[in-house]
Structure formats: C-alpha cells, structure tokens
C-alpha cells in the first residue's frame, strides 16, 4: 500500500480578490508534508496567487483581499495576530527570476539568519552559510569566492543561491514560482535534482508551466483554471489519465 504523507498545508474555501476582480474561487487543497506539489494551469489561472497566500505575500498588495482559511500544521495563518515575519521564516519562497541581493554570496545567505536572530557568532553564521550552500548544491562551486557578489554568478547558480538563501532560515515549506523558466536545460536539471533532495526535508510547492517538469518533480499536481482548482491528484494519474476533461484538454494542448 502506498503511504500518503501528512497534510502540512490545508486551504479551505479560499477566495482572493484583487479589488473587484476575484482571482481565486473557493479553493480547497491539501498539500502533503515532505512532498512536492506542482500547480499547473494557463497564465492568470490563480496558481501564483494561491502560493502567495501560503506566506501571505498578498498582504503587500493593498487592493488584495483574502477570505477563507489556510492552515499550516492545523494553525490558521490568516489570523491578524499572526506574526507574518515568523510565518515567512517558516515558508520560504523562490521566484521566477533569480533575485540575489546586490551583496556578497556570503551575505546573501547570512542576511536571513541574522535578522531572524539565528546566527549570533561568526562561526555559527559560517556554518549556516556552508550548510545552506551545500543543501542547495552550490557549495563546491562557490566555496572559494564567498565574498564575491551573488549577482556575478550564472543564472542557474543565482537561482540555487536564492534556494540556499531560502533554506538558511531553516523553513518548513518552500514555495517556488516557476523557478526554472529563466534557466537553460542543464541548470534546470540541477534545480530539479535539488528539489528531489530538498523534499526529504521540506514541503515544496512549485508553480510551473512545464508539464514535463511537473511530471518529473512532483508527487501531487493541481490544475487551476480561471481561479478555480479544477482537479488535483497524484501526478502520474493527472498526466496519464485525468478525470476532468478540462485537465486533459490543458495538458494535451487542446486549450482555447
């Protein structure tokens, strides 16, 4: 029998509005612990909006209004009294375009732990930097030039640096919004290999436009369309024999 991991993140009747426009409609989606969930769907379908709810990134948009629930480990995160900074410590994010700080490789990694009070001494910080870079499979490539600017790395390395930065504060969840769309196939393969490794420790949610990538990296896939979660299920099932016709039309390229 196949074992399913525990549910880490649970969204219940999640609705999101940007001003008058509703971006998500009653999304109910469970994301399992230490598993990769891929979210697919055409541009504007709400998949990025959904993951931005998980670390309350939508809070920074004035006109954005969220209703419904998102629970992490059974605790509601939309609670006004919840400390958003510590939420974002637990839920890291990696974006489409690598966005290292215009600082050294070392500072890129040590910045997070410092502000979260995680590395008090230099040697503690050194250890965090080394471990994070190792987990992001970047250590060997940069260990001799930690004081060089992060922006001087190649695109793929920059993205792994951003993943290392996300890992440095020891999160539980990593959100990835099209993390490979700006990368070449080799750099993409390295990130995918990394995702495989990271899922042993973290719960990962990845938004991707590449079906092949969704199949390769995820165990669960959700298909969004026009703000609605149309179908969610085991990745193999979704790509071999989906239940919903709209899902099938989308993944086979018969849309619109």
């Amino acid at each position, binding site marked *: 029998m196949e074992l399913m991991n525990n549910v880490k993140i649970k969204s219940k009747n999640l609705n999101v509005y940007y001003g008058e426009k509703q971006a998500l409609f009653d999304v109910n989606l469970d994301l399992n612990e230490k598993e990769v969930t891929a979210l697919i769907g055409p541009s504007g379908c709400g998949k990025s909006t959904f993951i931005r709810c998980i670390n309350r990134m939508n809070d920074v948009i004035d006109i954005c209004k969220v209703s419904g629930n998102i629970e992490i480990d059974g605790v509601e995160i939309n609670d006004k009294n919840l400390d958003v900074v510590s939420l974002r410590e637990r839920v890291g994010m990696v974006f489409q375009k690598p966005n290292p700080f215009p600082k050294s490789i070392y500072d890129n990694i040590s910045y997070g732990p410092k502000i979260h009070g995680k590395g008090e001494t230099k040697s503690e910080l050194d250890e965090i930097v080394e471990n994070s870079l190792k987990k992001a499979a970047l250590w060997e490539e940069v260990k001799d030039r930690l004081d060089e600017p992060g922006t001087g790395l190649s695109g793929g390395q920059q993205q792994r640096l951003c993943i290392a930065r996300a890992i440095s504060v020891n999160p539980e969840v990593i959100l990835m919004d099209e993390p490979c769309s700006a990368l070449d196939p080799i750099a993409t393969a390295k990130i995918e290999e990394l995702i495989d490794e990271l899922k042993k420790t973290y719960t990962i949610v990845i938004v991707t436009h590449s*079906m*092949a990538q969704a199949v390769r990296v995820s165990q669960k896939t959700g298909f969004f369309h026009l703000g609605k979660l149309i179908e969610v299920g085991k990745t193999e099932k979704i*790509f*071999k*024999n*989906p239940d919903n*016709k709209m*899902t*099938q*039309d989308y*993944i*086979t*390229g*018969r*849309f*619109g």
Partner: protein
Amino acid sequence: MSNEHTVKSYEEELRYLIDSVIKMGSLTESQLVDSMDAVIKVDKDSIDKIIKSDDEINKFRSKIDTQIMTLLVKRAPMAIDLRETISSLKISQDLERIGDLSKSNAKKVKPLPLDLPEELLGNLKRLGDLVIKQLNDVLDSYVNKNYGKAKEVWEKDEQVDDLTYIAMESVIDFLSKDKKNLDFSTHLIFATKNLERAGDHITNIAESICFLIKGEYLKGSRPKGKVIQQ
C-alpha cells in the same frame, strides 16, 4: 479525442498515426482472409501473393514505429495522447505477429493434398471464420473507440479456444486413421495452432484498446476455453 490540438501539426501527426494503424489493420485482415481461403481451397497459386502482402504489413510496422518515435520526441504526449501513442505501438506489434501467422499458414498450403475431407476443413474453416470476425470486430472497436465491443472480443476468445480444440481433434482423428496422413496433418495442426495464436494477439489488441479508452487495464483473467486448459 475530443477538441483539436492548438498546434495543428500535432493533431495531424496523431491522426496520421491512427490512420496508419487502421490501414495496417485492414491489410492484416485481408491477408488473414486470403490465407484462410488458400488453406480451405488448397489454393497453391495464391501463396506468393500472401507472402508478399506480409512485406507490406512489415513496412507499415516500421513506418508506425518511426511515427511514434517522432511523436514522442516532438510532442511528449500526455494523457489520452500518450495512451493513443503507446497503444498504437502495441497494436501494430500484434498486427505484425498476426501477419506472420497468416504467412506461415499460407506456406502450409503447399504440401496439402487437394482432396482433404470436408469435415476436417469444415472445422478449420469455422475456426478461421471466427478469428477473422474477431479481428474485424476488434479493428472496428479501435476505429470507433468502442470499449464495450473491445471487451466483447476479449471475452469471446474463449470460443476461439474451443473451436481450436475441435479442429485439433478432427486433425488428430484423421491422422490416426492412416499414418500416411502424417506429413500434411502436422501442417494442419500447426495451421490450427497459428489461428489460435492469432486469436491471442487479437485479445491483446482488445486489451490495448480498453486501456486506450479508459486508461486502465481490464481486470480479472480472461475466460479461457478447452485448448488452454489441457
């Protein structure tokens, strides 16, 4: 398939693949009909034509293989398209094997005497007719994506087994009457067995079609007739 692909050439490539399988199927069916006809009528003149038509079937098989590889490389098909591609590969393999068996049966006509007893041929003909009908039905279910019909073919193979048993018995009976019949009786036994094996390939095709339509394999074991249980 329902809606068309956004990329027209993808749609055309898939359509072309399915058409190739249908054409290969109809060629295989004609060859099976011809070879059965040659056996029953002991028509030695048609042997060469049947052997030649097997080359055509083999060519189709290579063509379909190439089409499938191109589709996999170019389109990385998913869901129904993936199942369509994979089942084309499997169906074309089974059709090719049926073609080989028809060719083999045609070759067996050469040593047959012209005055074979009617009863012997009658039992063989009944088996041949059923296998031809099974192939026709299974191809029909492929063209019309008819799950029920494919499943019916799958279940009906039991009857092929039973008729094989009867045909075999009548050949053995004939052989036991006179040892002089040994040579061509052996050929007839092989021809009967070939038809039974063609029936098995037809059930494979039925299984592929059911998988193609529903995305899951037929559950349970297929009903089997006498000959298998022996």
